[in-house]
């Protein structure tokens, strides 16, 4: 798909994020906006998926390990045709399929229930190992957070991914630098995260601007390195696309009010 088309989908997903969170009065817009471009690239250009055949065993798998970025996933799945926009009204509401965090039992297109940080990447490693075991040629993608990378389980899973030579796995780090209580460096420094990923046995690609569609696509389309899991380090901007949210730690888990939502949608319309 051409880049402009993908960028336009990313713009729509960002608007969905604002609409969903402001209607619900809750949710996590900041970290959703930072990983939107990666999700759109995956679902519209990279992954072999079909919303009309969402249980096909051969489909590629995606796990949103940073499950609180659910609005970005829901927006992407909706734009891709998994369900209609009327579901946005029930985001985080009783009996809705769009739970506060992704629920594989309720939402079409969601392959794992996530939100407990560290678990998604570990489940994705299991999927990739299971795919190898059963001879399934699918690829498994997971998006993890930088704050999430403080969880020990992320590194247990990484060790296993290298040990079992899971070259059918792509781990994508949404490195926006901010978490609930402040910057990564204030809360718990990640140190040299790229060197750590290399040391854990990943084939690492760093993307200078993880919100630039072309750069994201180039990384995602790089052929796998035989015998090694792939790690794509996306340097992103929290709140990307909304002027008053960009780089602001306060927009991690806070929804815009009606007035702010209007401003945000204007920003996104450009």
């Amino acid at each position, binding site marked *: 798909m051409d880049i402009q088309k993908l960028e336009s989908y990313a713009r729509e997903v960002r608007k969905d994020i604002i609409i969903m969170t402001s209607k619900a009065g809750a949710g996590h817009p900041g970290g959703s906006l930072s990983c939107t471009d990666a999700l759109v690239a995956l679902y519209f250009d990279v992954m072999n998926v079909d919303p009309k055949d969402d249980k096909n065993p051969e489909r590629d798998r995606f796990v949103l390990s940073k499950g609180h970025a659910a609005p970005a996933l829901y927006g992407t799945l909706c734009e891709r045709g998994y369900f209609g926009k009327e579901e946005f009204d029930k985001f985080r509401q009783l009996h809705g399929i769009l739970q506060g965090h992704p629920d594989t039992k309720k939402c079409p297109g969601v392959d794992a229930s996530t939100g407990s940080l560290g678990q998604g990447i570990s489940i994705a490693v299991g999927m990739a*190992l299971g795919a190898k075991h059963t001879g399934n040629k699918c690829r498994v993608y997971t998006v993890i957070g930088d704050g999430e990378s403080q969880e020990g389980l992320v590194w247990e899973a990484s060790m296993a991914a290298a040990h079992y030579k899971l070259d059918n796995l792509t781990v994508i780090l949404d490195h926006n630098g901010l978490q609930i209580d402040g910057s990564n460096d204030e809360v718990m420094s990640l140190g040299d995260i790229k060197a750590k990923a290399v040391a854990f046995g990943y084939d690492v690609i760093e993307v200078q601007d993880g919100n630039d569609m072309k750069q994201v696509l180039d990384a995602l389309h790089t052929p796998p390195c035989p015998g090694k899991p792939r790690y794509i380090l996306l340097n992103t901007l929290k709140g990307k696309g909304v002027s008053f949210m960009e780089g602001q730690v306060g927009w991690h888990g806070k929804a815009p009010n009606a007035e702010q939502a209007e401003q945000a949608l204007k920003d996104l319309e450009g």
Partner: protein
Amino acid sequence: MEKKAVRVAYGEALVKLGQTNNKVVVLDADLASATMTNAFKKEFPGRFYDCGIAEANMVDMAAGMSTMGLIPFCSTFAVFAGRNYDQIRNGVCYPKFNVKFGFSHAGITLGEDGGSHQAIEDIALMRVLPGMTVFVPSDANECYQCVEAAAKIEGPVFIRTARLATPVYDPRPFTVGKGTVIRDGSDCVIFTCGIMLEHTMEAAEILESKGIKTALVSFHTIKPFDEELACTYAAKCKKVFTVEEHSVIGGLGDTVASAIIGKGVEKFKKIGINDEFGQSGKPADLLKEYGLTGPQIAENILSNL
């Protein structure tokens, strides 16, 4: 009488299951020679995955593997039911993934490794999880039946096994969720699970010799629990005792209590680990220390009739 540890039966049952069901894979966390999954590893090296000393990752990896149509059996120590709790809860039970847990070395009869390693809370932790089936086999033969049944259940299953070699009884009819009447009686009833079967049988005989007609019912399935059978015997005997190698909080005793409340029971007492941790020692000495030998159980019941 032949003796065999329930964990040994677990290892053998996995091999048997592996021969007939190629979806079964086994995960362990560097404890294959203790959980007895090494038998499966030897028989099916390509279907055995060591996860290293990283139990949390083992559970979520199993969750992921189950989504590819496999039936993963995770094996480690029962005390790690706590260490892995978030993974078992959110990674497996919340999405209702088809993962089995064969957790061994449960209870104080783990012995010398001490209180840090003796799971006395795992039944409580597991039975509160929605959708989880909880098995506590009482001997090797029942363990074979539990493992076979676990593979047929679509969803998470927990199997609690013991380290200690214990008597192997003749195989009994097995239905998931149904208790087993070991002996009938009308003066009092003992409800038990797991390897306490041996000691409650001895206790029941002692009581019988003193003229107290004692019923004994063993539950290999704690969840879903056979409330009907528990209520039948509670109503019939009026005096109810539960015996388990687990904390008296949250385990079999509380499961029974919830089932029989309001059924006109005159006396109810939970016998087990009284809200304390275990300690190092020989299994037989530990059972005595915590009042779980046959004669001690009989004496406890006698003084509470």
